[in-house]
């Protein structure tokens, strides 16, 4: 990596210190994550082994099987040894049959020992290895398709959202959005899916302000966008959400169905969804290992900090979260090009110099993470229904994007907070992006902030505050976990022994074995 000197000429010592502090805050979390497993990690392992489908009530077989294993042997040893031991004992010929028999109560699971354990370990590694192999194949397939059809013609990639609730409505909308210029399609999930402790099954036609993330929906949409890629002569990427209680499973499904980007933040679920911190960190690490393997680009959720707190006062929380997200991502094996670190244009337009402040913040992110494809999120908080003012605000948002070399640009809609985007809203929004990129896309070549001017000073100030916040985190007895517990991040107090999904966490026993983790750790 060449040494990058950014436009802000940040003090390299301070940057180094900020990273060192993030590492110091993050490392105990990783140690803790390595010592625990969760129901979602174990279910993801079963999914990688090829177990799909659901019973008549819609409960996935992975949930059914894991629940029985857990009742018999506990969660702490992992699902692999008891399950493949049962298969080797001839309880069933394959996983689906075993799951059915187990939920009918006709299989007893045990924790195998000695030679039996060794055989179960080998058999599970073989079968789960096939799932990882499938992820590898999908990754090669993506590379091949990008070579064949070509990549997005420029950066930033244009990111558009569809969200009808019905996958069969989403498909034509997504294909139309791609024709209109989208490089990335994101299918928004149904409200509240993040709090479901199972992944719904099959193609779904009803959702709340979004469409359920299911394996079949992933497959259908990816196939549709493959058609679009062929039609348009450029590979159109697909995004979904690996967040909430089923993060590891969704990540595995995304890898197996060749999704290209996934929303995947290290603390979002804790702070904004009240999911247990331990559960989140364990799930997150596994899901990021899968994303690393699958060549998936993650998008982090720093924009959320700015929609709940003041975007000027809380600017340093974004930087801090980006640094933590970077540490956790790299520890899990993700590379710089996979880090779509988030930030957003959310300063009150009535604040004097708001544009210069936005530019300073965006430039700070760019200079701190020179090789990451940053994800730039449009204004939402100060979109009032005055669509004309909103259109101008989106134009300035696009201009900051052009000036700071953002990798992924979520297209802002002037009807934000009014209606779900109309056809014309999307068309006008894309026109806005095209105009700005065409008119000022290369302005960054001429633009260099005064070394001691407003922008450079503001960026230094935010970085300084971020370093202070990191010190504050480390001053807690148990570091980051305590900081999260006492509300250091915004107003939300999230203690490590509370929150959703805690009952699905277990400390690993000395006999714990997980073939997926074993393969992913080695990468």
């Amino acid at each position, binding site marked *: 990596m060449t040494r990058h000197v950014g436009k802000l000429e940040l003090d390299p010592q301070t940057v180094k210190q900020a990273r060192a502090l993030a590492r110091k805050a993050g490392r105990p979390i990783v140690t803790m994550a390595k010592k625990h497993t969760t129901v979602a990690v174990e279910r993801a392992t079963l999914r990688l082994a090829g177990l799909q489908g659901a019973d008549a009530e819609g409960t996935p077989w992975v949930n059914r099987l894991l629940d029985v294993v857990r009742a018999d042997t506990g969660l702490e040893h992992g699902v692999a040894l008891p399950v493949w031991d049962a298969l080797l004992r001839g309880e069933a010929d394959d996983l689906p049959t075993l799951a059915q028999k187990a939920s009918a109560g006709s299989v007893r699971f045990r924790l195998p020992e000695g030679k039996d354990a060794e055989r179960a370990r080998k058999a599970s590694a073989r079968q789960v290895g096939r799932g990882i192999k499938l992820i590898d194949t999908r990754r090669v397939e993506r590379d091949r398709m990008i070579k064949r059809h070509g990549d997005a013609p420029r950066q930033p990639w244009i990111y558009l959202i569809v969200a009808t609730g019905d996958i069969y409505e989403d498909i034509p909308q997504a294909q*139309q959005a791609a*024709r*209109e210029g989208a490089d990335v399609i994101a299918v928004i999930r*149904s*409200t*509240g899916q993040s*709090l479901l402790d199972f992944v719904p099954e099959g193609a779904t036609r009803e959702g*709340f302000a979004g469409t359920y993330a299911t394996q079949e929906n992933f497959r259908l949409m990816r196939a549709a966008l493959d058609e679009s890629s062929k039609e348009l002569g450029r590979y159109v990427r697909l995004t979904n959400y690996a967040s909430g209680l089923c993060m590891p499973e969704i990540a595995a499904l995304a890898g197996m169905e060749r999704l290209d980007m996934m929303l995947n933040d290290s603390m979002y679920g804790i*702070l*904004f*969804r*009240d999911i247990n911190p331990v559960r989140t960190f364990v799930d997150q690490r596994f899901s990021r290992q899968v994303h690393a393997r699958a060549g998936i680009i993650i998008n982090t959720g720093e924009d*959320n900090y700015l*929609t*709940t707190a003041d975007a000027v006062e809380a600017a340093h929380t974004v930087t801090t979260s980006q640094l933590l997200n970077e540490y956790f991502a790299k520890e899990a094996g993700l590379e710089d090009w996979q880090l779509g670190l988030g930030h957003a244009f959310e300063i009150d337009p009535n604040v004097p110099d708001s544009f210069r402040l936005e530019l300073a913040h965006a430039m700070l992110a760019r200079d701190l993470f020179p090789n990451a494809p940053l994800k730039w999120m449009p204004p*939402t*908080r100060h979109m009032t229904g005055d669509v004309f003012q909103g259109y101008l605000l989106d134009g300035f948002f696009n201009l900051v994007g052009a000036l700071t070399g953002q990798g992924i640009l979520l297209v802002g809609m002037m009807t934000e*907070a009014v209606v779900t985007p*109309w*056809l*014309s809203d999307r*068309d*006008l929004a894309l026109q806005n992006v095209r105009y700005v990129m065409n008119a000022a896309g290369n302005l960054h070549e001429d633009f260099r902030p005064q070394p001691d001017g407003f922008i450079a000073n503001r960026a230094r100030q935010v970085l300084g505050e971020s370093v202070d916040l990191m010190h504050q985190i480390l001053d807690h007895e148990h570091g980051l976990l305590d900081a999260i517990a006492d509300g250091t991040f915004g*107003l*939300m107090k999230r203690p490590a022994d509370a929150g*959703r999904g805690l009952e699905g966490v277990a400390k690993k026993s000395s006999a714990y074995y997980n073939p997926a983790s074993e393969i992913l750790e080695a990468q």
Partner: protein
Amino acid sequence: MNKQASDGHIIRPYGDTTGDGMVQVSFTLPMPHSKVAEGAAAQLANKMGIDPAMVVHAKAMGPDFTFFVVYGRVNHLVDVSKVEVVERDYPLLSPKEANAAIKRALRRRLTVVGACIGTDAHTVGIDAILNIKGFAGEKGLEYYRELKVVNLGAQVSVPQLVERARAEKADAVLVSQVVTQRDAHLLNTREMSAAFRESYPADKRPLLIVGGPRFDEGAAADLGVDRVFGRGTTPGEVASYLVHQLVERKAS
């Protein structure tokens, strides 16, 4: 100045001259851009009462749609004296105002216990109102510093809910119901309100609020609750209602 404007209650839109009646509209028609399409746009504008209508902008959006901007003079009059509006019976407060009002009146945090009762596993509604993530661009009740939110999640039984409400000394209980098979939402709500009436003296009972997409907002009395919120209710509306009922009641 003409007669209408001086009367005050009969007015027409204002472009740059009193009484000119000028308006602008934009819309999309599902047809390719052509002379005919522009004519179609003008025809629609005429039917909306805009005459003459100037189609000032027409742009193809893909092969099948055209977007228009139209300016013109609208021939309708507005009689302000005949305007009827339904006023909300409580003022809408910002989170800041709600927090300040609670602090001032109660000198403690206001406790809200929320749950999905019965077999309903859809926490969408209660989470949209309670989670900090919120709904429709508004932050949920967790965001309010002066509100203590206890979200019990899904499939909570009525006795559990009552017990927890007592333990937390709840000021208000929020119940969300999405599933409506065989009127489950109505039966569950009645069971809940009856249980609270039974275990609390009338003047100590917490405020009972129920919400969901299929409820009739006028059915509060029938269901034995204090308020029913329907589809599209935002956290800010719920918070404002809580403040109005609990804080104002205390103050009076």
